[in-house]
């Protein structure tokens, strides 16, 4: 055997961490990288994009606990031309609008109707239980007037919850979050708005009181994580136009999660192979069944005629023991091997004889006499008239047999042909379905999708306490999307949408991205999910861009014009919105 003469070091001396530490120098590495020829090409995108992508910051303070190592990019920003600052204009556009801005010109009364009203005695407090099981535990003497005086007597509680993108969109609740200058979008695991009033006057929560909340909701998360990620509690500060971090959410998981499997390409292929094998097995089994269910008739036995070669003899036996010999009414027996039938056998007087079947047409005759016995191979034969009669019967029976067999064979063949046709169609469907699934997977980012896998949905109870009335959110800041295109937005006739508020949602995330439309915006989105985008036109109509539009994009595509379909349908309610804002193509 060839030796490689490796330089094998057995139990070699070890280096300490300190020894290694002294060689470490990231700044030198970075410097080397920036001056190396390879880095110029590999970083050109970064440097050219530096004015359109916010630099990254590590979050500090309270948020850092939940977001160690998380860094984000500003989601949507782009200059149309070098002197144009989209980011600035986008900011100014939304700054000029109410911070909580229901999009569909809903009246105060319309909005008020979305709250559930509940009366309670402010002196005693109480528990309000919402229809979905959420609970508010209100302590005694919890409310004060605007001027700080204690409230006594009956108060009216107004309460509503927001669970999905339609709730968030309809309420006009901003989901952008600024932490130390870094912009995020918050993903919600349930949000509430609670107010109290007496005689039409809004009340405040007393400074030393808190309301304990149990918010029943659900969260989505990649199934392979096994449990939902951590969420925080934020309060909407409408005055300062931002969310304010309050605490870490205490989340209880209720029951088992459920999910819709998102197959990987390997899984689809494996499933396809298994289905193909199963189909082949099904075909083989069905073919066997056809033959079993349509047995061919038994061919009649042709009688043997005695020949002159070997000895023929007769003896009595019970025909009932050998029903196959019924054609041999006058059966005789002929020795098969004449050599066995010696003179001694012929001359001996045998006292008894036994016959047993050896094969289809051969028998074993044992002749017994005193202490001796002799076994001979014999076959049944007919002679003369008996043979002719048996042959006539045989010919008739054979004719009938041939006709029945032919009929049966045709029946079997027809059944088999029908089965094969059915299997062929099933196989074709299987192939088609496989190709379709693979194409769909590939269109949706194939290998990357394998990472995401199924999205699990888990029912939860969020427990937290609120120290003021208003909008409270169970949230987590989201990492950035990787896919980015230079986007333009038009209606189906190609007329551009500019200075409209556009909304975008990712099916796998419970949030709403909001931005101002303009030309050549850098739009970031999750290429591995279904995305839905819409806007409200200047005429107050909803214009939609369905997931299929996003799927037209290739991973290397740099630019795309998103064509929105303007709906003529009148939108009057949240149900109307739900009917049109769905991910179906």
């Amino acid at each position, binding site marked *: 055997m060839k030796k490689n003469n*490796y330089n*094998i070091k*057995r139990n070699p001396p070890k280096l300490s961490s300190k020894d*290694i530490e002294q*060689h470490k120098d*990231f700044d030198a*590495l970075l410097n080397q990288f920036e001056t190396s020829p390879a880095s110029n090409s590999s970083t050109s995108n970064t440097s050219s994009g530096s004015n359109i992508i916010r630099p990254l910051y590590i979050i500090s303070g309270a948020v850092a606990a939940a977001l160690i190592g998380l860094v984000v990019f500003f989601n949507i920003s782009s200059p149309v031309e070098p002197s144009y600052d989209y980011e600035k204009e986008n900011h100014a556009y939304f700054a000029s609008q109410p911070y909580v801005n229901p999009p569909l010109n809903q009246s105060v009364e319309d909005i008020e109707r979305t709250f559930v009203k509940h009366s309670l005695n402010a002196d005693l407090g109480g528990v309000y239980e919402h229809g979905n099981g959420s609970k508010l535990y209100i302590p005694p003497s919890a409310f004060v007037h605007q001027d700080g005086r204690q409230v006594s007597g009956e108060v009216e509680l107004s309460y509503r919850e927001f669970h999905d993108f339609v709730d968030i969109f309809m309420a006009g609740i901003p989901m952008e979050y600024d932490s130390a200058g870094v912009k995020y979008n918050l993903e919600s695991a349930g949000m509430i708005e609670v107010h109290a009033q007496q005689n039409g006057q809004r009340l405040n929560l007393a400074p030393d009181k808190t309301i304990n909340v149990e918010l029943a909701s659900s969260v989505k998360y990649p199934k392979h994580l096994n449990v939902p990620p951590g969420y925080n509690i934020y309060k909407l500060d409408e005055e300062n136009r931002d969310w304010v971090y309050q605490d870490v959410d205490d989340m209880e998981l209720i029951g088992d999660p459920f999910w819709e499997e998102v197959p990987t390409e390997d899984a689809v292929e494996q499933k396809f192979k298994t289905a193909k094998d199963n189909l082949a097995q099904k075909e083989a089994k069905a073919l066997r069944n056809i033959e079993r269910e349509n047995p061919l008739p038994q061919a009649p036995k042709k009688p043997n005629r005695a020949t002159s070669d070997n000895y023929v003899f007769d003896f009595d036996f019970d025909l009932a023991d050998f029903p196959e010999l019924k054609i041999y009414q006058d059966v005789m027996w002929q020795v098969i091997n004449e050599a066995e039938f010696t003179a001694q056998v012929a001359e001996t007087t045998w006292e008894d004889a036994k016959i047993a079947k050896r094969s289809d047409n051969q028998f074993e005759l044992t002749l017994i006499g005193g202490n001796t016995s002799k076994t001979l191979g014999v076959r049944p034969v007919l002679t003369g008239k008996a043979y002719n009669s048996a042959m006539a019967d045989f010919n008739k029976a054979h004719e009938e047999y041939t006709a029945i067999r032919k009929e049966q064979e045709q029946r079997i063949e027809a059944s088999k042909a029908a089965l094969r046709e059915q299997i062929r169609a099933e196989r074709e469907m299987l192939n088609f379905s496989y190709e379709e699934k693979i194409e769909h997977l590939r269109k949706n980012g194939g290998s990357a999708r394998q990472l995401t896998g199924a999205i699990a949905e888990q029912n939860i109870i969020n427990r937290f306490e609120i120290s003021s009335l208003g909008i409270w959110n169970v949230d987590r800041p989201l990492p950035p999307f990787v896919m980015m295109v230079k986007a333009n937005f038009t209606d189906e006739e190609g007329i551009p949408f500019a200075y409209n508020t556009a909304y975008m949602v990712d099916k796998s995330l419970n949030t709403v991205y909001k931005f101002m439309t303009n030309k050549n915006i850098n739009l970031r989105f999750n290429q591995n999910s279904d995305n839905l985008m819409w806007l409200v036109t200047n005429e107050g109509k909803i214009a939609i861009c369905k997931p299929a539009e996003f799927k037209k994009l290739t991973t290397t595509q740099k630019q795309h014009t998103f064509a929105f379909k303007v709906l003529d349908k009148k939108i009057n309610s949240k149900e109307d919105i739900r009917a049109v804002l769905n991910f179906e193509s």
Partner: protein
Amino acid sequence: MPAISKINRSLVKTSLRMDDKKKTVSTSAMEKEWLEIQAAQQNPARFRPLYERYYEEIFRFIYRRTSNESLSADICSQVFLKALQQLKKYSYKGVPFSAWLYRIASNEVAQHFRNHKKNRVVSVEDYQLSDMIDEMEEDGDKEQLRNLLLNALDNLKLNDLQLIELRFFEQRPFKEIAEILNITESNAKVKTYRILERLKKYMK
């Protein structure tokens, strides 16, 4: 197919036993790290936490194959420079980022020995040899078996030796070994089984 069945059964037994003690990284940790990588893909300065996290690990990996501190430092610098240069091409495949760094390091070490026409260093501890002998279910005098195994290792081709080093001397899971050596996971398992069988023969 009786022979294949036999191999598979043995392989399952071996790999199950071996998997119990291998280093693993949780999926959530890998996904958090993927966010850091994406950040570093956009801004190389953000590579720092990854560099800090893996420098020592990669350095030791190289050192075990060179047994030379300053050479290891040079190769390690090259590894991280190449990692930075190629970072934009990196995509998450469900294995730790370190597996990718090990792959670069493995290539750099191999390149060094090719360029300098020197024999590759193999660092091995006695307990690692003992573990391997246990895995191979070889009975006998331990010291004698260790010597036999060391001798047998010298018969292995470099690719096979690398697999043994990663699996038994560095305790890497098969999934990562597959990523480092650019082979499939099942291929890594089958190869490991076959190499162990070969080593057993060499030891006779």
